[in-house]
């Protein structure tokens, strides 16, 4: 099902024209309303009327997360404070939080793109949407909420926490679509088994999962345990929140709602724009947003863009499931390591649950990587030999994937803390300068 067929299936040439018009207007707004961007334009000799086509996007300056921090809290807003109707903020793990704002029109745009997201996952007015994303400053809960109301679904705004009650409500109220982080979906599935509840006693048919990286194997596990279709959704608060891109039922890439958010893939080192099909850092330009229209915002997410028409009929560009995040990237003995690579290794072996923890430390000036892996009940062996074989196999597979050695430690199930929000997968004990 397609919420906005006119846009989502638009001829690509026409779409480029629409994007060009919107980009041109955006550059003018930025020039006149945001001193930070005016300065950048002046430094590179760009006049407000110069930008007429999206082909010129590559001439424009980038925006990075640090720019938002430097202009904390409202320095990059392009409208007067009286026009702001909502503020969200991301957790500031490294200093101050990132604050984002919305005008009334921005909230409408957000509801529209989330409506497209949910429709794409098979949602409609007959659905009961269980929203277990956190409500509050985090964009997940309220973002999905408004889109769900827009499509006319029945919204259950549970927010995070209290897993037992979540299961009870889902069962009693007949929830058909679950919205939460993929790690929480797995957590719910486990809690369901432990409580002796069968997935057949639920009416769930789909889940929209995002806000953290997850693998195809994790998808298969969620789909198998909850007996649902697990749809990957993508978004970030700097761009708008959930609703930037979403998979359709084909589950073959996430459709980016590029009439609002123009994507580019760039080489993270040279910042050159890469042709379609090449892996690069995802960059977004928010051409319609009023309060915080970021120009060429570097997401740090690595992906591949594909402009081919999807089997579902949508013509808008697709991005591959995120292939890693440079923020999560660890540099261990000079090698780039993404936690998702280790997750993939573990899941491919199917002898372990995707519950793992990476501990990086520095011993005698040398980086050491320790990987804690929980031993799955089903593949439990009471022979030391087999457990040690398992350990060696994990060690070997990690080494051949990452190119660096790791110490594997088998731990009892439930040793590693389960998070109800974003999963904590890494403990870095190294003291950095």
């Amino acid at each position, binding site marked *: 099902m397609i919420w906005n067929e006119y846009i989502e299936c638009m001829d690509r040439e026409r779409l480029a024209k629409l994007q060009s018009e919107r980009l041109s207007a955006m550059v003018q707004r930025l020039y006149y309303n945001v001193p930070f961007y005016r300065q950048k334009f002046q430094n590179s000799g760009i006049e407000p009327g110069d930008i007429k086509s999206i082909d010129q996007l590559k001439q424009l300056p980038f925006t990075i997360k640090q720019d938002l921090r430097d202009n904390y809290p409202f320095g990059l807003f392009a409208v007067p404070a009286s026009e702001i109707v909502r503020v969200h903020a991301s957790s500031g793990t490294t200093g101050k939080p990132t604050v984002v704002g919305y005008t009334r029109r921005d909230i409408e745009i957000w509801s529209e793109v989330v409506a497209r997201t949910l429709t794409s996952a098979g949602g409609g007015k007959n659905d009961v949407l269980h929203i277990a994303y956190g409500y509050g400053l985090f964009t997940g809960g309220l973002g999905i909420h408004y889109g769900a109301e827009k499509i006319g679904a029945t919204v259950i705004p549970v927010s995070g926490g209290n897993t037992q009650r979540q299961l009870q409500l889902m069962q009693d109220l007949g929830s058909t679509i679950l919205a939460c982080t993929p790690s929480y979906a797995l957590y719910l599935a486990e809690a369901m088994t432990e409580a002796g509840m069968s997935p057949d006693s639920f009416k769930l048919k789909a889940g929209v999962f995002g806000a953290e990286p997850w693998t195809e194997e994790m998808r298969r596990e969620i789909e198998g345990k909850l007996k649902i279709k697990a749809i990957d959704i993508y978004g970030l608060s700097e761009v708008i929140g959930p609703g930037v891109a979403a998979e359709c039922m084909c589950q073959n890439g996430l459709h980016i709602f590029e009439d609002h958010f123009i994507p580019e893939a760039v080489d993270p080192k040279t910042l050159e724009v890469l042709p379609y099909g090449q892996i690069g850092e995802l960059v977004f330009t928010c051409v319609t947003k009023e309060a915080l229209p970021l120009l060429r915002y570097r997401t740090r997410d690595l992906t591949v863009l594909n402009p081919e028409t999807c089997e579902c009929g949508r013509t808008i560009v697709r991005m591959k499931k995120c292939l890693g995040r440079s923020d999560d990237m660890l540099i261990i003995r000079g090698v780039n390591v993404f936690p998702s690579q280790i997750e993939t290794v573990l899941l491919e072996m199917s002898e372990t649950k995707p519950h793992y923890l990476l501990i990086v430390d520095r011993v005698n000036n040398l980086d050491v990587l320790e990987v804690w892996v929980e031993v799955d009940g089903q593949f439990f062996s009471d022979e030391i030999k087999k*457990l040690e074989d398992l350990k060696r196999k994990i060690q070997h597979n990690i080494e051949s994937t990452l190119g660096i050695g790791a110490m594997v*430690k088998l731990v009892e199930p439930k040793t590693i803390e389960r998070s109800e929000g974003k999963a904590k997968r890494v403990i870095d004990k190294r003291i950095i300068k």
Partner: protein
Amino acid sequence: MIIKQLSVFLENKSGRLTEVTETLASAQINISAFSIADTSDFGMLRMIVNKPEKAEQTLKAKGISVHITDVVGLIVPDEPGGLHRALEILSSEGISVEYMYAFSLKDRATVILRTDAVQHTVEILQNHKLGLLKTSDIYEV
């Protein structure tokens, strides 16, 4: 003739073993025999108890990683070469022993054997007229 043994995966942390024994004690479960195999960071506790199913459920409820494994209980003739003869038979039949441990039950020397073919082991030992533990020797009905 197949005996149900409890196998518990334990990390090498102080208090883990006590947690298991305490749980079984409070559930009124008797441990007839046990052995621990250990490595540098984890261990495997193997036990013969009087109520294996109940013990498994109780331990699971405590979040302890426990499974039931089939083993054979061999009553060893109390004479020189008693154990040797039994092992020789298994070896000549191509059965390999994964692990074994001894205990005494009602003054009889008994060996718990885990082999790569448990049912087959039972048949071979019975054919050679060797005494095996019956479930009724250990379990409470």
